[in-house]
């Protein structure tokens, strides 16, 4: 199964399709996404803004999982790190949003590199548990220091008087901010694509197969592992900054440990081996609960449904939903080179 992933882990949906065909699906998805504001619903605009944001997070998780075989159960906590820095800088300096977003991303990339330190020595469940412990620590820490809301001092938190964070100059309204998030998500995809189709991608592929042989082939295993974590952390940090921009403030209670575990689970369910798996993960993570809530299904009943669906998906679809869709798509195209 692992070999399979390496072979088909690229962005192709179908190998014998023409060059144009591989861009077809992304372009369709992008057009659909950009037409969402035209629906004219404030609720679904908010929901899809969250979906766009968590797509970036899931992209970072699936990168680690697919390329390095590493599991992070701390990505929602990492989003919190990025969001904290973005908010802090915004309230302190009022620089353009992009600077703050980037700074939040870079800071989280550094945190990601710190998480990579244990990853140099362990993998699998142990590493996952280290990240889980980090997420657990973060959820308590942030409950104490809180997110900056325009107060004084280093933490920038005051019990009263929330000052709302400024949004990007180009995206003041909810509609514009949604488009802004989609654009950042596209850039995030481009960043990951560029990495996977260049030297780091080849190095990661070899490392995933065997670290010893990667090292024998002259690859700096430590560097590329750390780089993978930094990139993944960067994406989470950007997502956190966007979340802060979406709500214009953050609340410590948005970052419990369970959320970090859940988004990893959904990334696996969505399908880490295909490029659109991250989108499916984010849809499951934010759109599905919102749909159930809107249909009047109680949050508790939604839990039951969600948990059952999670177990079912993990038990029956080893390549995730994206894998099933890709398999179906390739069958429909009557391609000789079938994916499963």
């Amino acid at each position, binding site marked *: 199964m692992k070999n399979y992933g390496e072979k088909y882990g690229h962005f192709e949906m179908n190998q014998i399709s023409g060059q144009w065909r591989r861009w077809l699906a992304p372009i369709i998805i992008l057009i659909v996404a950009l037409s969402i504001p035209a629906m004219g619903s404030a609720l679904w605009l*908010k929901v899809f803004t969250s979906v766009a944001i968590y797509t970036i997070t899931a992209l970072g998780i699936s990168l680690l999982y697919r390329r390095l075989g590493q599991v992070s159960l701390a990505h929602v906590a990492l989003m919190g790190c990025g969001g904290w820095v973005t908010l802090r800088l915004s309230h302190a300096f009022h620089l353009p949003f992009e600077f703050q977003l980037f700074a939040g991303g870079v800071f989280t990339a550094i945190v990601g590199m710190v998480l990579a330190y244990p990853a140099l020595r362990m993998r699998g469940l142990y590493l996952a548990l280290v990240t889980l412990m980090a997420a657990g620590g973060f959820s308590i820490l942030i409950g104490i220091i809180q997110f900056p809301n325009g107060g004084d001092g280093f933490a920038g*938190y005051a019990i009263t*008087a929330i000052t709302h964070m400024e949004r990007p100059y180009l995206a003041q309204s909810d509609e514009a901010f949604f488009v802004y998030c989609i654009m950042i998500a596209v850039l995030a995809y481009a960043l990951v694509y560029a990495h996977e189709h260049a030297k780091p991608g080849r190095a990661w592929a070899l490392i995933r197969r065997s670290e010893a042989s990667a090292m024998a082939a002259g690859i700096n295993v430590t560097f590329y592992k750390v780089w993978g974590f930094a990139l993944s952390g960067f994406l989470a940090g950007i997502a956190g900054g966007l979340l802060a921009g979406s709500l214009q403030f953050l609340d410590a209670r948005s970052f419990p440990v369970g959320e970090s575990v859940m988004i990893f689970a959904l990334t696996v369910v969505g399908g880490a081996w295909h490029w659109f798996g991250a989108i499916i993960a984010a849809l499951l993570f934010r759109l599905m609960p919102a749909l159930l809530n809107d249909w009047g299904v109680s949050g508790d009943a939604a839990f039951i449904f969600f948990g059952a669906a999670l177990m079912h998906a993990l038990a029956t679809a080893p390549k995730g939903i994206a894998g099933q869709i890709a398999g179906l798509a390739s069958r429909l195209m009557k391609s000789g080179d079938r994916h499963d």
Partner: protein
Amino acid sequence: MKKIAVYSASLVGAFMMMTGGAMAAPSCGLSNGQKANGEPIKVGAIVGQTGPDDFSSSGDAAQAFFKCINANGGVNGRPIEFTMEDDQWNPEVAAQVGNKLVKDVGVVALVGSGSFVDMAVNAKLYADEGVMSMAGACAISDCYESSNIVTAAGGPLISSVGAAQWAVAHQGAKNIVCVTTNIPTSGIYGCSWMQKFMENKGLEASIIPLDPASADMNSAVLETIASGADTVLVNMPGGMAAAFLKVAEEQDLRDNFKWISSTPLYDADIPAALGKYWTGVLTVNAELNPIDGTGPDTTNWRAIMETYANEGDPRDTFSQAGYLAAKYFVEAVLKLDPADINRASVTKAIQAISGKTSDMMCGPYYVGLADRHLPNHANIMMQLVDGGFKQVSECTQVDTEYLAPYLAIEKEMGISN
């Protein structure tokens, strides 16, 4: 259980109506017994139902009241279409449902909301869109410091200071330790102003913040012992407070301190949850008057809950607050021309509410045009007795500097002098 309760409640309701019952018939709005059939008026509420605690009782009460209105002539013939959304204690969801109600559904106002997140997340939305939220249960500071949110409840600050004030006056408390959640806008907000109150009196106070998810109540109890206080103020949600008090009971600390609490423990399930050990020992602050009171509003509220709410919906302080919000809302919109009920006219009508008195509240309820609202700043104390509560103090104005801007507003409005 909740679902099962629905059926039994309607059965009980039907039974009571058939037999006539001993209870007074609910009265609301026009009270003409005619079903309202006009164009509906859209009203919303956001409650924290799914999450660490079910905080939806104020919304349930508002819903019951509106059902009663719709069965009794509506708002001059127009029924109220009430949409209650669950924010699941999640800020993202709160923003989603807030936008849904305000922008998509287009509610004229929010009535009976009860939440730990909605008021912080959506205060700006309400102000930007010019919609008022007449909330029920407000557990966070944002609820009392926003131009478009007003509630009949007093909140953790007023309740904590009220409890401390009573303990100083009646129990001779000199050093109070406030055991609370580490949520800054809820627990710490209340306790730190209680601390200021004590310091202004030349007395001592300290705060023990607790992580709500922590398994360890033992160290909190030991910290309480080490604090040197003579009085313990429990300012936490009921479940957490019950856990803390259980460990205190394990250490048999009942007689080492005087025990007071803020409103969350004024709940019908609390006497059974705490057990006999605390009977006659714990005194709880109530932001509104007793739920078993005999005044017209309290009686009518119970009657409306009996007829129009589910049996499982709690009858607590927050339910009372939801009832008051719904009642005052309807009284305000009844004055409007039924053809001209829109967000702008409703917001104006709500802002014009003033001088509403009720047997449920110590002082008058008012809204007014201000950047912050806190009409309810007087409350009572209830002592835990065998299987229930007993009122041990009359309405008392809460004495805290925090109220200075609110009192200035009241002076300006001519409510107080």
